[in-house]
């Protein structure tokens, strides 16, 4: 073993007597570890939310929309669709007649809403936006029984066909399946009354509801048959929108050009594409901003951990000043002295990073795994046993620290054992439990700092292993997937539980970053140690 490693490892593992690992090392490892764990966890949640939202949006959103700049109609679209579907990376394309119309219910005398109407071919649209998956009811626009029924009931008016309404839109209009909805298709000038207009009205029967849980759609969209729509606007054989699904939604911005080229529109027609990212630009911008902000905060967290390492090392350098003097007297070079402290710091950084990664991933796993958890009472018992053993190790007499313990113990027992019987809001309870856990952790650390050295070298690893197991188990009992439903957020985020997505690339990146920062943090204290003058170091008090 190289000399520097020999000395560094000894400094890391022990104080005066042969022992397992020094408490200062443990605290600095924990400092780095907590930083890394937080980073991994927070990024996993943010990624999960972004991924979840994207997935929800993409479930019924076309990846690319192709239209002419003036939303104009064009014929011969079958050829264009065929050409688009041949482009590599395109899954399917669906022709749409897209327009806005005013609606009112049968019997009402005034316009009640203006909605977006999409004329579609359900089977084709299905391939692009999974249309049928979100329809509650029927989407047989021509022949549904409800249409026949309505025709039978309302023999005084002409029923054009069926319509699928956005569910919230339907709620707002207060219409049910089988009700007749009137669409103002067009205006014609009144021949007998110049200057006045007569609305051209078509009647549709509500045959189903569109429920995507996405407000944008459910609130303002309705679907009718493509051919019917073409007849409505007298644009037989023409459409104005093509919706396209890609194999990889993320590639949408790059695919636009290719798609336009494939359609062979004349330049003057000015074909243009819109991607899902642009459609929801505001949302994804917000998500991105949030992530950037978080990454900055996370970098700061790691920086704090690095300062922690640096200060620990500066402390050990100070503590080891006389040793450094003696090592230099014995003929150790400045480089070797520097090496000793850098190795020591780097090992702390590495252990901390690895421990933090393990912790972060474990919590991610707990937050995303729905398995039955043991009752919190078992966890409480576990915490109790652990606390008792810490106390058992530390105390054979009463002093100030044991008074501190009693205070913490009281706070803790209030939190853990009494709160279940109190009528408290869940936020209040959570706050109390978090406070209790923090109090307990502080207590454990205080006690361990005082008593760690008294432990024999067999007990230290045993205690550490048992402690880790117990804490892991307590985490397992308490940390569950966070239900957005219970928090009343499921409608906003359109997810049932807080999604977690571990980005392995990022985990690797954070590991390397953390290690690099820790390594950098070792340089100054190590350099300081190597710069000590042997004589002054030897005489250091």
């Amino acid at each position: 073993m190289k000399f520097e490693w020999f000395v560094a490892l000894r400094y890391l593992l022990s104080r005066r007597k042969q022992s397992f690992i020094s408490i200062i090392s443990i605290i600095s490892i924990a400092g780095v570890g907590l930083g890394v764990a937080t980073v991994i966890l927070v990024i996993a949640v943010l990624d999960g939310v972004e991924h979840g939202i994207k997935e929800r949006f993409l479930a019924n959103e076309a990846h690319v929309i192709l239209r002419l700049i003036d939303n104009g109609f064009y014929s011969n679209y079958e050829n264009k669709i065929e050409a688009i579907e041949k482009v590599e990376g395109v899954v399917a394309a669906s022709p749409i007649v897209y327009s806005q119309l005013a609606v009112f219910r049968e019997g009402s005398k005034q316009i009640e809403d203006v909605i977006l109407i999409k004329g579609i071919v359900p089977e084709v649209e299905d391939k692009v936006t999974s249309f049928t998956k979100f329809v509650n009811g029927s989407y047989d626009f021509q022949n549904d029984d409800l249409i026949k029924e309505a025709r039978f009931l309302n023999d005084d008016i002409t029923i054009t066909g069926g319509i699928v309404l956005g569910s919230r839109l339907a709620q707002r209009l207060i219409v049910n399946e089988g009700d007749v909805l009137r669409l103002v298709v067009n205006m014609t000038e009144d021949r007998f009354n110049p200057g006045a207009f007569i609305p051209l009205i078509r009647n549709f029967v509500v045959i189903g509801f569109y429920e995507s849980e996405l407000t944008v759609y459910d609130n303002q969209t309705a679907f009718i048959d493509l051919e019917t729509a073409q007849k409505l606007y007298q644009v037989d054989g023409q459409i104005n929108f093509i919706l396209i699904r890609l194999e990889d939604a993320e590639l949408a911005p790059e695919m636009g050009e290719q798609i336009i080229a494939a359609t062979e529109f004349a330049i003057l027609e000015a074909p243009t594409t819109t991607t899902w990212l642009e459609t929801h630009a505001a949302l994804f911008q917000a998500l991105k901003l949030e992530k950037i902000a978080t990454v900055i905060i996370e970098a700061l967290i790691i920086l704090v951990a690095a300062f922690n390492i640096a200060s620990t090392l500066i402390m050990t350098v100070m503590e080891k000043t006389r040793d450094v003097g003696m090592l230099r007297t014995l003929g150790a070079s400045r480089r070797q002295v520097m090496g000793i402290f850098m190795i020591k710091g780097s090992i702390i950084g590495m252990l901390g990073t690895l421990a933090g990664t393990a912790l972060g991933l474990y919590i991610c796993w707990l937050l995303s795994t729905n398995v039955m958890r043991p009752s919190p009472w078992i966890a409480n018992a576990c915490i109790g046993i652990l606390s008792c053993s810490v106390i058992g190790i530390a105390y054979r007499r009463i002093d100030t620290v044991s008074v501190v313990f009693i205070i913490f113990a009281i706070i803790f027992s209030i939190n853990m054992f009494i709160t279940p019987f109190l009528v408290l809001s869940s936020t209040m309870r959570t706050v109390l439990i978090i406070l209790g856990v923090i109090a307990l952790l502080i207590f454990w650390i205080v006690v361990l700092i005082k008593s760690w050295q008294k432990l024999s070298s067999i007990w230290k690893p045993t205690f550490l292993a048992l402690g880790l197991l117990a804490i892991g188990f307590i985490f397992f009992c308490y940390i569950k997937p966070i239900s957005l439903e219970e928090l009343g957020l499921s409608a906003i985020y359109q997810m049932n539980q807080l999604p977690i997505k571990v980005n392995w690339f990022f985990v690797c990146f954070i590991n390397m970053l953390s290690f690099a920062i820790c390594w950098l943090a070792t340089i100054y204290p190590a350099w300081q140690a190597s710069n000590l003058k042997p004589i002054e170091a030897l005489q250091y008090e």
Partner: protein
Amino acid sequence: METLIRIDNLHKSFYDGDTELKVLKGVNLDVHQAEVLAIMGASGVGKSTLLHIIGTLDRPTEGNIFYEDEDVTTFSERELTRFRNDAIGFVFQFHQLLPEFTALENVAMSGLIRNTRKVADENGNRYSSSKAYEKAEILLESVGLSERLGHFPSQLSGGERQRVAIARALINQPKVVLADEPTGNIDDKTSGAVLDVLQDINERLKQTFIIVTHDSRLSERANRTVHLVDGKIADE
């Protein structure tokens, strides 16, 4: 008698701002091969300072120190480091053992440092850690501590620690061992044992010692005693 170290017109001043504290004012001294030289003098006269400069831990303000005609005051920092490892053994008043290491490891330490320099022994073999430990064990035996190899400094008595420190100074067969009041911090009876060890080593290994001391019993055992008075070696 062969001269090992020649100290020529050595001056040392300490500066505190503008005030100059002249400690050594022209020390001239020859140290002979295989002798035990005692340096005596009042407290604060500059004995330790002189010893540190001889041991290359500090540089003189003026003057030269020749080790067998090699002037160490001209050495670079790097050369000094190597020189300290090879040629100097130090024993301090406070043992200065490394607390995290056992007696054996403390003694072997400077051998381990030497191994990292990839120097070869007289037969052309590289030193190895196991060799350093072997040698350390023999040295600890010779200072009467063969039962204490695995003990940490905190588990040893004052006299025992000082004997470990002596063994540590010897591991690389230095040209000279510099001892700064080696018995200054231990009681009379124990210091007797420490002195026995010093004398024994000097006789067996022909090891040169320079010992700074107040202890008249120590100077009695020395081959030669010089006195440091007012920054100079007093005439004998």
